[in-house]
C-alpha cells in the first residue's frame, strides 16, 4: 500500500529532484520543476496527515532494517503537522518566486538556486520526518549548508558576511548537537529516539546524560536563534534574497523549535527536562528577555526586513515561553503559535518581496507613500501587521489568547502583563511602517513606480494573508492539531 511509503517519499522526492533541477537549462523550467516538486511534497504531507489522524502513527523502516538498528522514519501528529506547515510554505513561496528570482539572481544561476532551495526543503522535511537522532544531524546540515549558499546569493555584499556568520554559528550549533548525540550513544548504545526514551529512564542520573541534554539544548537554541544566541539571524534574514527571507523566516526556526520539542519531550521526557533539570528556570527568563529586547530593537530599525527579523526573534521568544511554562496548556500555546507565526511572518516577508520587486529597497524611508502606487501590497501588509500584533479575528490573536490563558493557569499575572505590553510594542513598529506607507508624501523611489507587484506574487501574498484571517476565525484546525500533538508529546 502506497500510504506506508509516504514518509520516505516526502523526503526522497525533493532530494532526488534537487540534482535533476541543477541540470535544467536556462529558462523557466527550473522554476516550474521546483514548484511542481514542492506541491508534490505538500500533497504527500496532506495525505500523511490524513493517514496519521485516521490510523495513528506511521513508521517506515529504511531498507527494511527493524527499528532500533536501522533508521526509522516516525510520523506522529506533531511531525505530520510541521510537515504540512513546511511544505505548504515552500510550495507557496516557490509559486510566487519566479519574478523575484529573475530580478535578484543572475540568469545563469537559476537552476542552481532552485536546486539549493529543494535541498534546503529536503533537509527541513527530513529533520521532521526522521526518528533517528543521527539522521537529524545529517538533515540539519543539509538544510543549513544549502541555506548558507542561498543567503549568500543576496544582492547586497553584506549578504556574504551574514551568510559567513550564520555558517560559523550554525556549524557550532550542529556540532554541539553531534556531541549530544555522541554522549547519549555512549550511555545507551542506541540512536533511535523512542529507544533512547526508554533507555534514558533506565539509567537515570548519569552525568554524561545531563551533559548531553545541555549540548542538545544549546545547539538547538543556536539554530533557533533564542536570545542570547540570536546574533546571526537579523543580518541573514535582512540581506538574503527576498524569496529566501520568506522561506527561512517561516520554516527554518519552526523546524528548530520542533527539534526542541522532540529533545525535551520525546528523547529526555517531560519529567527529566522539567523536574530533574528544571529547564523552566533557564528557558523562562531567556524567553522573556528575547521578547522584550527584540521588540524594543525592532522599533529602531531603519530597514524593514531587519525590523521583521527582530520581530521574529520576539515571536520565537513567545514560542519558547510556551515550553518554559511547563504545562500542557503552555505547550499547546507554543504549537499554535508555531503554526500561526509561520503564516503571519511568511505573509509579511511576502509583502516586503512585493515592495522590493517594484521599489528595489528595504529602507523604511524609501517606502514613504508606497500605498498610493501599490495599494494591494500595502493593504496586505496592514492585515499581516494586525495579525502579528494579535488583533482579534486574526490568527495572531488566537496564539496570544492561548498563551495568556496558559500563563494565567499558573497564576503568573506579571507574565501576562509582559505579553500584553510587548504586543503593544509591536503596534509601534508595525505602525512606523504603515505610517510611512500611507501618510507620507511619496519618496523619489516610489514616484517612478507605475504598477502593482507581479500578479502571481500578489495572489500568493493574499492567499497567505487570507489564511491568517481564516485561521483567526475558524480556529478548530490548529487548536485541535496542537492539542493532539501536545497530548502525544507529553505521554
Amino acid at each position, binding site marked *: 500500500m502506497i500510504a506506508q511509503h509516504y514518509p520516505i517519499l516526502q523526503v526522497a522526492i525533493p532530494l532526488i529532484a534537487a540534482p535533476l533541477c541543477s541540470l535544467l537549462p536556462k529558462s523557466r523550467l527550473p522554476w516550474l520543476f521546483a514548484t511542481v516538486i514542492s506541491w508534490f511534497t505538500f500533497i504527500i504531507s496532506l495525505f500523511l496527515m490524513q493517514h496519521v489522524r485516521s490510523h495513528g502513527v506511521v513508521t517506515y523502516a529504511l531498507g527494511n532494517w527493524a527499528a532500533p538498528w536501522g533508521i526509522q522514519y516516525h510520523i506522529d501528529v506533531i511531525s505530520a503537522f510541521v510537515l504540512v506547515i513546511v511544505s505548504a510554505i515552500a510550495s507557496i513561496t516557490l509559486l510566487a518566486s519566479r519574478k523575484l528570482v529573475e530580478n535578484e539572481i543572475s540568469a545563469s544561476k537559476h537552476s542552481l538556486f532552485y536546486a539549493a532551495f529543494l535541498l534546503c526543503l529536503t533537509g527541513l522535511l527530513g529533520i521532521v520526518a526522521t526518528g533517528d537522532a*543521527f539522521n537529524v*544531524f*545529517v538533515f540539519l*546540515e543539509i538544510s543549513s*549548508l544549502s541555506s*548558507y*549558499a542561498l543567503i*549568500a546569493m543576496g544582492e547586497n*555584499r*553584506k549578504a*556574504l*558576511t551574514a*551568510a*559567513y556568520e550564520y*555558517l*560559523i554559528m550554525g*556549524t*557550532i550549533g*550542529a*556540532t554541539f548537537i*553531534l*556531541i549530544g548525540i*555522541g554522549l547519549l*550513544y*555512549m550511555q545507551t548504545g542506541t540512536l533511535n529516539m523512542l529507544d533512547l526514551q526508554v533507555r534514558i529512564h533506565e539509567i537515570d542520573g548519569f552525568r554524561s546524560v545531563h551533559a548531553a541534554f545541555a549540548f542538545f539544548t544549546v545547539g538547538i537554541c543556536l539554530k533557533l536563534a533564542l536570545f542570547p544566541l540570536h546574533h546571526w539571524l537579523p543580518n541573514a534574514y535582512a540581506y538574503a534574497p527576498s524569496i529566501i527571507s520568506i522561506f527561512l523566516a517561516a520554516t527554518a526556526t519552526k523546524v528548530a523549535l520542533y527539534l526542541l520539542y522532540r529533545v525535551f519531550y520525546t528523547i529526555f521526557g517531560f519529567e527529566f527536562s522539567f523536574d530533574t533539570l528544571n529547564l523552566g528556570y533557564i528557558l523562562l527568563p531567556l524567553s522573556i528577555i528575547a521578547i522584550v529586547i527584540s521588540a524594543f530593537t525592532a522599533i529602531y530599525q531603519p530597514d524593514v526586513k531587519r525590523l521583521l527579523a527582530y520581530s521574529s526573534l520576539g515571536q520565537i521568544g513567545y514560542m519558547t515561553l510556551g515550553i518554559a511554562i511547563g504545562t500542557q496548556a503552555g505547550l499547546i500555546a507554543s504549537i499554535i503559535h508555531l503554526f500561526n507565526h509561520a503564516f503571519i511572518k511568511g505573509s509579511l516577508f511576502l509583502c516586503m518581496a512585493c515592495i522590493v520587486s517594484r521599489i528595489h529597497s528595504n529602507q523604511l524611508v524609501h517606502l514613504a507613500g508606497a500605498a498610493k502606487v501599490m495599494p494591494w501590497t500595502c493593504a496586505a501588509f496592514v492585515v499581516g501587521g494586525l495579525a502579528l500584533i494579535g488583533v482579534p479575528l486574526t490568527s495572531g490573536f488566537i496564539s496570544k489568547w492561548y498563551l495568556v490563558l496558559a500563563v494565567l493557569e499558573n497564576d503568573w499575572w506579571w507574565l501576562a502583563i509582559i505579553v500584553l505590553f510587548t504586543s503593544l510594542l509591536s503596534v509601534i513598529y508595525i505602525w512606523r511602517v504603515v505610517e510611512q506607507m500611507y501618510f507620507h508624501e511619496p519618496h523619489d523611489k516610489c514616484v517612478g513606480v507605475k504598477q502593482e507587484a507581479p500578479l502571481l506574487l500578489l495572489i500568493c501574498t493574499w492567499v497567505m494573508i487570507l489564511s491568517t484571517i481564516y485561521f483567526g476565525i475558524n480556529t478548530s484546525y490548529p487548536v485541535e492539531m496542537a492539542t493532539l500533538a501536545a497530548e502525544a508529546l507529553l505521554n
Partner: protein
Amino acid sequence: MLEYISNHYNYWVSILLMMAGLYIVIDHTNLLKKLIGLNIFQTSVFILFISLGKVDGGTAPILEKGYSSFSNPLPHVLILTAIVVSVATTAVGLALVVNINNRFNSIEEEEIEQIELEEE
C-alpha cells in the same frame, strides 16, 4: 589520579582540541583562521566518537577466524558521514571567504565591519 588521566587520554585530547578550536573561532578576526578553528573543533568530536567505539582488546570489525571481539563499527560509520559534512561546510565556508575577499578586498573581520559601517 595519574592513571585516571592516562586511561582516558583520548578523551582529554578531544576536550583539549575542542576548547582550542572554539577559542580560535571566537578569538581570531581573520575569517580563514576562524574556519580552521571550526575544523579543529569538528575534528575533536570525531575523536570523541571514535574513542567511544573502542572495545578493549577488540580488533577491527572484520569477520575472520580466530577473532571474537570487535570494536563497535557504528561510530566509525557515523563519523564517516560527519567528515563528509565537515568537508562540505569547509568548502562552503571557503567559497564565502573568497567571495568576501572579492567584494570587500579584505578577510579581516574588523576591516569588513568598518567598511560596512561606512556604507550606512
